[in-house]
């Protein structure tokens, strides 16, 4: 394999892993901390993408648009938690059904508001060329963003008062309540955080995806696989699962076709869950 080809493969693999981290992180926090699976997560991404799109169109710089998207989707998440999720704690299947229904409603609502095709956001930053190969400069931004988001989540859960409370509420909810932690509020904030991450991820993906109302459906399956394969530890699990699944998908796609890449990803997920039913991080002692 020539050097330029190896570099191209490495960069696309890293980009693939970063995309998985971006789309899975919010879902992982909500699942890891609250045992809630938000099947509308893909639509949260989609809303983030639309918010970013309209911000950029209104002249807001892209970086600011990502923050706006995070805030808007985060607040939307808080509303969803208050209206829907809080009534369903501890009922995993019910939350899956409820959020799935929510996702259908969201897609159709966006179709009715914005129509099925809206002008998207061209990918900024041109391309980086080496030998016969080139990658888009923006893919480097995606890799950087994934790292920044992981760092942010690490900081949030280990260095802030909220993080300590959230982990306490997750690990020993009764004791947490006894020492005066309001687990209801903590859960609401956690759901909002997860949603905000989804919003930011959607905004970051807007320039490489077709921003259409159904775009979330293309991400939710992979995000879900990553979270389940990752297991209970939000950061280490998600990162490890994204790295593993992303590498399998890209390497197999590169050697054969995308079709086999997807198949290999699914097979890897099934085999892993058979061997390690609690996910990659299931046996780790540190739960983050």
């Amino acid at each position, binding site marked *: 394999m020539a050097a330029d080809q190896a570099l191209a493969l490495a960069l696309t693999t890293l980009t693939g892993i970063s995309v998985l981290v971006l789309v899975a992180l919010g879902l992982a926090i909500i699942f890891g901390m609250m045992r809630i699976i938000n099947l509308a997560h893909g639509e949260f991404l989609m809303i983030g993408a639309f918010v970013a799109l309209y911000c950029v169109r209104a002249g807001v710089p892209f970086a600011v648009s990502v923050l706006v998207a995070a805030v808007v989707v985060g607040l939307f998440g808080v509303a969803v938690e208050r209206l829907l999720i809080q009534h369903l704690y501890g009922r995993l299947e019910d939350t899956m059904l409820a959020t799935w229904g929510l996702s259908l409603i969201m897609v159709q609502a966006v179709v009715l508001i914005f129509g099925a*095709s809206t002008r998207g956001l061209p990918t900024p930053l041109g391309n980086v060329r080496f030998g016969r190969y080139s990658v888009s400069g923006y893919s480097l931004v995606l890799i950087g963003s994934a790292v920044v988001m992981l760092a942010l989540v690490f900081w949030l859960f280990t260095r802030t008062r909220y993080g300590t409370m959230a982990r306490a509420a997750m690990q020993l909810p009764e004791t947490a309540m006894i020492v005066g932690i309001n687990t209801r509020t903590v859960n609401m904030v956690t759901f909002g955080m997860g949603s905000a991450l989804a919003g930011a991820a959607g905004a970051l993906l807007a320039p490489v995806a077709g921003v259409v109302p159904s775009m979330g459906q293309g991400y939710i399956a992979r995000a879900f696989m990553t979270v389940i394969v990752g297991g209970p530890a939000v950061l280490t699990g998600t990162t490890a699962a994204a790295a593993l699944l992303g590498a399998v998908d*890209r390497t197999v796609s590169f050697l054969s076709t995308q079709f086999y890449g997807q198949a290999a990803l699914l097979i890897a997920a099934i085999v892993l869950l058979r061997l390690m039913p609690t996910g990659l991080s299931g046996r780790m002692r540190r739960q983050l």
Partner: protein
Amino acid sequence: MKTKATQQRSTYWSAFVAFVVMALVATACGGGGAGETGDAGEDTAGGDTEQGTEGGGEASGDPIVVGAIFDETGGLNIYGEHKVKAARLSVEAINDEGGVLGRPLELVTYDTQSTNEKYTQFANQLALQDQAVVIQGGITSASREAVRPVVDRHEILYFYNEQYEGGVCDRNVFLTGVVPSQQLAALIPWAIENVGPKMYVLAADYNYGQISAQWVDRYAEENGGEVVGTDFIPLDVNEFGSTINSLQSAQPDVVVSLLVGGEHIAFYRQFAAAGLGENMRIVSPTFGLGNEQVVLGPDEAKDITVAFPYFQELDTPENTEFVERWHAEYGDDYPYIPDQAVDEWVGWHLWAQAVEEAGSLEREDVIEALEGGLSIDGPGGTVTMDGPSHHVVKDVHIGTVNDEGGFDVIESQEQVPPSFEQEQCDLIANPDLNEQFTPED
């Protein structure tokens, strides 16, 4: 401790299993399922049907019920949205002119939510419950194959008004969309002559993409081109990093995109972002049907070349009137009217004219009138039904994406026959034929 671990384990498994079940339900959509029709049609009790009716006041007499089925929601709505609008507009136009046989049409539409099983269900419902005399609709080839056995069984006339991979030969079915022997037969030689002979094919992984890829092979070979690689891409893929690597390794002159649906739009964006447009050019028989040129920016879609019988820019009196009517109904800011919307217009008008000519709604009489070779002047020019093959003769234009979210027409071929279908399919001589011919037969 042990119980906690077991509990956690079962949580994961039940989550995983529940998700797989939902994923299976969800991915049955999008044309991914290769027309698993089964006997789902027995169950016509879908409580979630949306029924819209339109009827004109111009014509008198009892309304004639006609049906349309489209994916108005879900992943395929980038197509379904304008197809259902086109169907409504066409029926309304026919009613404005006095309906057929002096009676107004009443259009019943169903939304299949991008799920193929629902096509079977709603086709049954239109046949049995609504007693529709004709069904027009379907978007993906998988959806057409879901409807076909149902309408054949109920002996209801069916129009499939959509660009497709060609070769369907069924006495009960009329196909007004452009086929490879019209579309790829124009586009591939154009690409070889104007861009270069080395081609790489990217195709959506279901019957449309698979069969169309065979067509690209054939036309490339016949015209001195060479297909250096073919990738089939599942409909839910929206990440094309490895495809782009493959393209860079192969260095083709031309990328033939047979990609379909909202997720695949990401390919064009990522292709442009990686700077591939500098030394390869995309040609496509599907680009634009979902208004991809609107979703993408002008810089990203620049130079993408397509072939269709209809472009909104065509300068004919019929088209001016059609575009005015469309804008009056759906707003002046409507992004772009794609070819497949006009196919709906053609389908409904051909049927209406055949009924008038036959003087009857009876299926046999209408088929006879249609096989007699009717012609209409549609927005895209004259369209003539080719009796034996049940396909249409129409103009085909080659166009390139321009800066305004539309296309510049650069070359035109007039009255192109569906030559492959004419060769293989003669339903007047063999009315019992019922199959789909492919180039590898």
